[in-house]
């Protein structure tokens, strides 16, 4: 699984993320990983498995259950010249550290008149789909994307899982990385990067001419399958991967809507006040006269994500919902 190699290799999203961290730990001794069970357990989702053996307990640091303390400690260490990668098991638990993220990491640079940049990376899983019920299933990326002073990214592909960490660590400001829990087992070919990965731009994952499907993170695979189904019916869907949720790259979205004149935004968060709401508003602001149909949104039902399989499935955006939304826009 070489980073700089030239060969195409088969890997998973989980391994790609691990390889990105291994590369970071190897190439910069200021980098260390810290979080609950990142060491001996190998990471709650197995992402950091083996890193403890390779880098030792100083640099792959198991923390107590203290989200606020170890996220805040990451901020302090970053201020003192380290490059910490802090892992929070899931976005649900990040709420215990929200004060540190919002009131310290995101504000210190500004409040200090530019004196105190915080070069910190925080990784956490997000999303539903594995019957873990409400307290392990929410998608709060949009809340974080609301906050000026941090960058929010959501790698949705194996390539991005492998290559977004390095630029995130090179960013002098705090970067929050959301990894959708359903992506870890995704496997595929990982080709050496054609160019350095870019944290500023959305990506067109599949070109199309009739409608823009705008997704990110765990919703991207759904959008891609929906695009396949639409293609079979003769509808050419362009699939946009937002990748960076803050700052939002509206240029790629605007350009796409200018070509297709229709848009469906897919977001696993609740519709009310969601990132999908923001993207829709931006389209209304910037591309209203390009639209041939109202912007469609496919979001989660406004309910705490339930446990029972059929309830959870119904609550979450599904491929059929995306296809149906596309039909409403096209027909």
């Amino acid at each position, binding site marked *: 699984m070489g980073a700089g190699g030239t060969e195409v290799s088969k890997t998973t999203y989980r391994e790609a993320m691990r390889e990105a961290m291994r590369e970071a730990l190897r190439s910069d001794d200021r980098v260390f990983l810290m979080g609950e069970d990142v060491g001996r357990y190998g990471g709650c989702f197995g992402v950091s498995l083996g890193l403890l053996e390779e880098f030792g307990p100083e640099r792959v640091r198991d923390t107590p259950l203290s989200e606020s303390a170890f996220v805040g400690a990451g901020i302090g260490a970053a201020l003192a010249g*380290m490059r910490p990668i802090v892992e929070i098991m899931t976005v649900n638990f990040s709420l215990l550290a929200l004060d540190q993220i919002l009131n310290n990491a995101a504000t210190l640079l500004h409040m200090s008149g530019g004196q105190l940049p915080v070069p910190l990376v925080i990784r956490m899983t997000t999303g539903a789909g594995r019957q873990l019920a409400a307290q392990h299933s929410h998608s709060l990326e949009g809340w974080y994307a609301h906050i000026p002073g941090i960058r929010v990214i959501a790698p949705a592909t194996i390539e991005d899982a492998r290559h977004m960490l390095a630029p995130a660590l*090179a960013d002098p400001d705090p970067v929050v990385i959301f990894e959708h829990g359903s992506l870890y087992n995704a496997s595929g070919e990982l080709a050496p990067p054609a160019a350095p990965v870019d944290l500023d731009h959305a990506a067109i994952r599949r070109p199309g001419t009739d409608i823009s499907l705008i997704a990110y993170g765990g919703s991207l695979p759904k959008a891609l399958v929906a695009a396949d189904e639409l293609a079979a019916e003769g509808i050419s869907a362009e699939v946009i991967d937002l990748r960076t949720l803050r700052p939002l790259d509206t240029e790629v979205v605007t350009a796409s809507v200018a070509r297709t004149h229709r848009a469906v935004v897919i977001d696993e968060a609740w519709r009310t006040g969601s990132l999908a709401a923001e993207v829709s508003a931006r389209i209304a602001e910037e591309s209203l006269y390009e639209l041939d149909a109202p912007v469609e949104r496919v979001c989660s039902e406004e309910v705490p994500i339930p446990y029972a399989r059929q309830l959870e499935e119904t609550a979450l955006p599904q491929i059929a919902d995306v296809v149906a939304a596309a039909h409403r826009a096209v027909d």
Partner: protein
Amino acid sequence: MSVARSTSARKSSTAPKSAKKTATSKEKGRTRPPAGQSSAEHRGDLLEAMLRIRRFEERCVELYSAAKIRGFVHLYIGEEAVAVGINEALTPEDAVVSTYREHGHALARGVTAEAVMAEMYGKATGCSGGRGGSMHLFDASRRFYGGSAIVAGGLPLAAGLALADRMREQPRVTCCFFGDGAFAEGEFHETANLAALWNLPLLLVCENNLYAMGTALAREHAQTDLAMRAASYGMPAWAVDGMDVEAVEQAASRATEGIRAGTGPHFLELRTYRFRAHSMYDPDRYRNKAEIEQWKARDPVSRLTDRMRENGELGARELARIEHQITDEIDRAVESAEQAPEEPVENLLRHVTSARRRVVS
């Protein structure tokens, strides 16, 4: 690590005594200058540092009334011995993390009265470029990390600064100031646990001024002996008379020596009192006059002045000279803040993200 016991009765003993009483066997072996050995000159410096904070804040009251300074302003008057005494034990390489009641910490740390005053005015020349105001003073060059208006929010961050030093084997101390109110927050306990667990070079300085806004200590804590509770995390912890700058200095030196020797975090509970209300907005209805007067009788500034007078270390003329010099310094700070340029509104969006952010494409 052996655990020091704090004295439990608030009234019981003075700080140096209680500190000696609670020393671990390891620490007892270390030689320390006996109390009272510091020179008259040094005491003069302590007095000057406390007076600078006192007079600076008295001027802030006037400027606040004149609407030159706005926002929340939390005065430190009465607590000066803590900032000054603690700072004596720190070097310029050490880090300080502070609260919203941080004028004293900033000035003791060497942030200039000019830079602090300009910040209170919200001017471009302020130590936070006008973005912070009274509650958010920062000076990276002095490793002064603010300035936080979230009670206890600075504690985890301080642990991180200490962690970085520990990982890179830098012989530095991070000092974190916080109040008795902060002690009730989870952040304090999470940080104490983490710092003790990881043996971090962290000095936890709890300024116990008996109130969290209007809530008295016994109404916010089931167990009011804070040093004892801190000690339960496995760190040396002492209660100190926070109205006696020399006692504070001595306890702080002892703690920082221990930290520099690698014995991990130390906790100091400074028993002190704020003579004024919680903030400029507070009508101070929750304390009675008698209590305030009782504490004013222990004013750290007059206490040191009296001690020096009795020792024949300070004459009226010398005191007048110090006072005059400080008045001058503050006059100049105010004058300079008045004249200083405003931060242009065109710069509003500066420092949200770093200008030097590398765009990777």
